C-alpha cells in the first residue's frame, strides 16, 4: 500500500486540489485547533478515509459533498489566520453545515399520565382481578390492564 505510490499520489492531489491533502488538512487542523477526528467529523468523512487521503495512500475524495465541505473549511481556516474571524465563530459556522440528523427517535406516549388515569378509576388489586378475568379470552387487554392499572 505505502511506498513509491505516495509521492505520485501527493502530486496528483496537488494537481486536483492545489496542494497535497495532508498539507491542507494539517493546516486546517492547526489553525482551527481541531484534532484529526474532529476534522473528519466536520467534513462528514470517516477517520480511516481521512487518514488514507492525508497519507497519500489514496488520491481522490470520492464524495463530492466532502470536497465542498473541505473548501469551506479551508476558507474558514484562512479567515481565522488573517484575523477576519475567531476560531470559535469559524468552527460554529462549519458545524452548522453538518449533515441532517439521522437518529432513531423514540416518541412515547406519556405513560405516567395514562397510569394516573387508570388509577383514578380503581386500585391495583382491582385491575389485577379484572386482568385475570379477561386473560383467557383477551390476553392483550389483560396485559394492558396490568401494565397501566396494576404494576404501575
Amino acid at each position, binding site marked *: 500500500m505505502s511506498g513509491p505510490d505516495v509521492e505520485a499520489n501527493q502530486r496528483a492531489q496537488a494537481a486536483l486540489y492545489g496542494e497535497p491533502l495532508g498539507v491542507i488538512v494539517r493546516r486546517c487542523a492547526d489553525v482551527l485547533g481541531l484534532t484529526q477526528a*474532529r476534522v473528519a*467529523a*466536520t467534513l*462528514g*468523512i*470517516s*477517520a*480511516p*478515509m481521512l487518514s*488514507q487521503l492525508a497519507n497519500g495512500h*489514496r488520491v*481522490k475524495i*470520492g*464524495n*463530492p*459533498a*466532502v470536497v465542498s465541505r473541505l473548501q469551506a473549511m479551508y476558507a474558514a481556516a484562512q479567515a481565522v489566520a488573517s484575523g477576519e474571524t475567531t476560531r470559535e465563530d469559524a468552527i460554529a459556522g462549519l*458545524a452548522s453545515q*453538518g*449533515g*441532517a*440528523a*439521522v*437518529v*432513531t*427517535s*423514540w*416518541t*412515547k*406516549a406519556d*405513560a405516567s399520565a*395514562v397510569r394516573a388515569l387508570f388509577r383514578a378509576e380503581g386500585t391495583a388489586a382491582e385491575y389485577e382481578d379484572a386482568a385475570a378475568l379477561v386473560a383467557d379470552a383477551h*390476553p*392483550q387487554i389483560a*396485559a394492558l390492564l396490568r401494565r397501566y392499572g396494576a404494576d404501575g
Partner: protein
Amino acid sequence: MGEVFAGRYELLEPIGSGGMGTVWLVHDRRDDEIRAAKLVRQVDAALLLRFIRELSTRVEHPHTVVPRGWAGEDDTVLFTMDVVRGGSVHHLLEDFGALPPAWAACLLDQLLDALEAVHEAGIVHRDVKPANLLLEPTGRGRPYLRLSDFGVAVPMHEPRMTAPAVVLGTRGYRAPETAFGVDPLPVQDLYGAGVVLAEMLTGERPPDGRALPAVAPPGVDRRLWDVARSMANPDPALRPATAAQARKMLHETGLVPPSTFVPDDGGAQVEVFEHVRADGVGVPSPRPTPELTPSLRPPATPSPVAPAGPGTPARRPAPLAVLGLLSVGAGGVVIVVALLMLLG
C-alpha cells in the same frame, strides 16, 4: 480500570450511539472476550430482556448481528453483540458518495437476505437505515453486510412490549404509515431498505415520505432505481409484499454479482476500511492478535457448516468482534440529541 457492569462487563470506551442506547466496547471478564455492548435505560427492563432472549434464539443468520448475552442492573440493561469492525453503510456513503450499481445491488441483496430471516422469525426490525447496516472490514474485496441494532425491533402478532402510540424509527427511513400507529409489518422494513437503495444510488437521502421520481436521476441505473421506487412506495400495498419478492426483483436486474465475486466498482476504488482496531482500544489484548489485514479474517471457531470464502464471518466473526461506530457522521451534536431523546 473502567466501571464494571453486573460484576462481569468492564466498560472500556464508548464506540457509538444508536437506537435506544449507547454502544460500548466491553471486556467480558467471564469469557475474557472483547465485545460490543449496548446499554439501555429502560423502565421495562424485564420485558426487554425477555425479548432479547427470544431474538437471540430466533434469528441466526450470517447477515445479522443479534444480542448474544445480557445482564441487568437496576433500571439498566446491557446486551452484548459481536463487534463488526468495518463501520457501516453510512460511513461508506460519507466516504464515497453514490456507490457503483454493482456495490449497491450486492449490499441490498445481503440486506434483503437478512430481512427475510428476520421476518420469518416473526420480527420486524423497524429501524433499517445506513448506520444500522454494519460492514466487516473487507477492504477492496466483496463487501459483507450485517444488519444490526434490533433495539427497537418488535415481534409481530404478540402483545406489544412498548407503550401504545409509539412512533419508532428514523425520520426519512420510516415508512409513512407508521406515523399512524399501524401494526409492525415486514413491508415497513422494505420501505426503509428501498430508501437505503435510493441513497446508495444517488449518494443522497431522498426527500421524506414522497414517492421517488419515476425517472431515474442522471447517472443512476434505471433498473435499480425502479427497484428502489417500488420498495419505497408510500403506499404499503404497492410495495413488494416480502423481502423474498423484493430480492427476486433485484436479481432480475442482473446486477447482483454472483456470490464470491467482487462487485465491479467502475474505477471508484470503493473500500471498506477497518474502523475499530482488532486489538481492542486502550486495553491489553486478551489474546494474541493475528496480523491485521484489510480483508476479512476467518472466524475464530469456524462453524462446521460455514462455507469457505467471503461468507465465512457468519456467526462468530472474530475473537474481538467489534460493533461498528454509529452516528459518527454529524458529530457530537447528533449524539447529544440522541442522548437527550433517550433520557427524555
